[in-house]
């Protein structure tokens, strides 16, 4: 037994050495794309899909002849939902694998952990998830929604179209919900909502026992004013939350819940029948009726060999980000980070909802905002959307100290959090 184990280990080691030594032979004339998504641990549930989506798009690009006459080679690493490991893996990708660009991260804390590394080594990171804003790094492009591209329009919809007067802001206790709720609370108060009509609630990660909170929400909602829950509850905790809502008999037309972190992928793990009518705000739904989306879904099903796999908003963000990067590389004629960054501004890419997204000088993009209601089949039906596209705002106008800050990486501003431009116009020009 022991002997077989030892020989097995030896064989594995040999195979690994073989794989490593095989790399340089064809790595010399490829363009390397680092994929920094957790494939194990708690976030694997969401991030594995994004890794697959990236592989699909790279595969697709290679079939069309690659980039600058070279093949594109994905380098996949697994930061295992371990935030400090994200920084180590990012460093490994940049220093050892010498990747030209990275696509990755999901949680804000993982992005914050990678931030010093990409800034130090002048790398490029495309971040595909909706987040709390309040950040603009020279080395990160944010293709997910900023709060003004998701939270604020959703609250507007509830307020104006559904006549909501009382608000429950429920979230998981970490940076994204805390910041988003801070922005929303200020926004609601600015709109004339009394502080007594706002209930803020935080729960730990993976919270499973929602009895007390749901019964509190029910009490809060019985004051005769239309009440809604704005949920920034993260991933895993959502299933027991929605189950408890359904069991305590709270229906979407009594107290609708609008969620910012629940998409098609998350709904795939829930029996959605009791949830019909609850809402989500995103910039993309799989149910969007556009030719680009139909083609994307078809490719995705073919790539995963599974016609039941769903697509979701962060996948679309990677789709936009990857295509923008490809265009910028083509325009710059090189993968050099500084040249590509310069070419990124103003880069336009057709998104999957029928519009054209553009990269802004603050490293955020323009996106449509969609509100969808959960359908019995686990999809969303769009019930409202913004006219045209909304540009992402790095610094919120509803946090007093951020209001004065501006992010603009083009001349003369050239900074991510300035009150005035870094450079004055040259005298005499």
């Amino acid at each position: 037994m022991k002997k077989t184990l030892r020989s097995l280990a030896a064989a594995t080691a040999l195979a690994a050495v073989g794989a490593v030594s095989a790399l340089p032979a064809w790595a010399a004339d490829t363009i390397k794309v680092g994929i920094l998504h957790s494939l194990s641990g708690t976030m694997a549930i969401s991030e594995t899909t994004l890794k697959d989506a990236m592989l699909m798009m790279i595969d697709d690009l290679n079939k069309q002849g690659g980039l600058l006459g070279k093949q594109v080679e994905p380098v996949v690493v697994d930061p295992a939902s371990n935030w400090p490991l994200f920084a180590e893996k990012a460093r490994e990708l940049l220093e050892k694998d010498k990747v030209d660009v990275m696509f990755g991260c999901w949680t804000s804390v993982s992005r914050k952990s990678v931030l010093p590394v990409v800034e130090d080594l002048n790398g490029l990171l495309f971040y595909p998830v909706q987040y709390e804003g309040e950040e603009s790094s020279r080395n990160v492009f944010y293709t997910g929604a900023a709060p003004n591209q998701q939270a604020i329009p959703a609250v507007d919809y509830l307020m104006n179209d559904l006549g909501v007067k009382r608000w429950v802001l429920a979230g998981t206790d970490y940076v994204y919900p805390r910041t988003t709720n801070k922005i929303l609370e200020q926004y609601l108060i600015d709109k004339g909502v009394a502080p007594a009509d706002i209930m803020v609630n935080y729960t730990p990660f993976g919270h499973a026992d929602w009895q007390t909170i749901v019964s509190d929400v029910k009490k809060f909602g019985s004051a005769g004013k239309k009440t809604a829950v704005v949920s920034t509850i993260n991933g895993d905790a959502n299933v027991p939350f929605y189950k408890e809502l359904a069991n305590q008999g709270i229906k979407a037309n009594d107290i609708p819940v609008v969620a910012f972190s629940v998409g098609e992928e998350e709904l795939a793990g829930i029996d959605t029948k009791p949830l019909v009518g609850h809402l989500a705000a995103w910039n993309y739904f799989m149910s969007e009726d556009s030719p680009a989306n139909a083609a994307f879904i078809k490719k995705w099903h073919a790539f995963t060999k599974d016609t039941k796999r769903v697509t979701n908003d962060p996948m679309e963000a990677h789709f936009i980000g990857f295509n923008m990067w490809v265009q910028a590389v083509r325009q710059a004629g090189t993968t050099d980070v500084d040249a590509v960054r310069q070419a990124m501004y103003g880069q336009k890419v057709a998104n999957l909802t029928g519009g054209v997204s553009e990269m802004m000088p603050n490293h955020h993009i323009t996106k449509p905002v969609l509100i969808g209601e959960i359908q019995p089949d686990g999809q969303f039906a769009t019930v409202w959307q913004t006219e045209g596209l909304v540009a992402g705002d790095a610094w919120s106008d509803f946090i007093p100290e951020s209001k004065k800050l501006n992010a603009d990486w083009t001349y003369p501003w050239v900074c991510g959090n300035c009150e005035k431009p870094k450079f004055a116009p040259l005298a005499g020009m």
Partner: protein
Amino acid sequence: MSRILAALGVLVALMFAPLAPAHADDAAFAAAVAGLDQKSFPKRAEAVATLGTLGHARTETVLRALADGTLFARKEDRQVVIGRLSGDAYSLSDAATGAPAGSAPSGELAKIIANNQMRGQIQDILGRFLLFSTDAEDRIRAADQVLSNPDASAVAQVRNALKTENEPAVRQRLERALAAALLSGGGTTEERLAAVQTLGNTNEPALRGLIQRTAANDADDAVRAAATSALAAIDRRLVFLDMGQNLVFGLSLGSVLLLAAIGLAITFGVMGVINMAHGEMIMLGAYTTFVVQQAFRAYLPPDLFGLYLVVAVPMAFVVAGAVGVAMERSVIRFLYGRPLETLLATWGISLMLQQAIRSSFGATNREVANPAWMSGAMDFLGLTLTTNRIVIIIFAAAVVLALAAFLRWSAMGLNMRAVTQNRSMAAAMGIPTGRVDALTFGLGSGIAGVAGVALSQVSNVSPSLGQGYIVDSFMVVVFGGVGSLWGTVVGAMSLGIVNKFLEPYSGAVLAKILVLVIIILFIQKRPRGLFALRGRFVE
């Protein structure tokens, strides 16, 4: 274009309506049905409202189809049809007339989607139809619907329904519904006073809100005074009810903790193995439930579906138990008496099991449906008891009793106790200690698997399911007293109840921290937990 034509057609029909009074209703109805197929949701909602006021014979059919998502517009001529899926295509009937309209594949049909507002409207309209249903259950539900969403416009219908209602249970509900509708507006002063009296004994938050608004806003002094005193009485009752509710919540959280910890009470408590893979045994149980559910869906008729949980319990026990036995025989038995190595090895096993499940089932959550008998809630003395929580409390109690009985009275249980209390003496008596160790570990793991069946009903089924319960489980066992089954029971229940009484004041995050602090302080005072084992066997 075709939509304009349809609208024109409707207009023409409307123009001729006076000539053909018998069809006037039909034409207006058809126009409203055609109005459902519009892009703007507010316009669709208008059409729904019109349908509700028309009171046509087919109103109910059309609205129900809209609510169920079986109402379509045929893409080629924008005819509004009701589709019934037969095979790959839908067989269609005209929504307005009910006449058959051929069949079409789903690609040629555009589903007419209802939004929240429309669904609410439909519920109200259909609910009022149901007031006159022949089925008493339906009438009760309709009355409750009015009660939970009272509106002055319902007064006339509820009065009509009361005229013909003979069932006392339904009558009582209708009277309350009428009172609520009258208070929401439209009642005379006397009627509103009587309504406050009728509703004064309520514990429902929604009705309390109604009375509170009456106390604040009613035009009449007497009504306001009556409402104010009714409100005070309600609030006095609610103080007790809140405590009762917290107690029930606490028991239910406690029984979840108990289920998660009871297997560990054996593997850690009795055998002393620090089993970091305990959570993964729970996870295996939950995945077994998922597999059994899929098998039921695929091979058995739908009316047997509710029984899948009953089958899943023994299956989960066997699967998790077998993995437990394999773990004990292949790894843990070499590590007895070396807690650090055991901790690291079982931690490694837990990661391997997680990754194995992730590779075979995928990283995403798996959907485990609550069977009908585990959904919904019931009202008990004004407390809302959700059925699945009640079932879990009963189930936890049953598992503990069965386990206690097994350890107390079965031969195997006797052997287990003998081996854990004095291994060498037990061996001298001829008990195969190695086999007993394996089976004890298997028993603990199997029970963790059974817990997984219950947890799949309240939580998500994902590879990291067990991670969320491992710390809580150790906490319960250490707090309750290592080695004591009853200690685990009392420990789980008290942690659950303390947590739930703290939560309303401190919030969920702080409650969890406070409980942890309380346990640490308690362990300082009593290092062996609530129920410490005494005697010479305690090392």
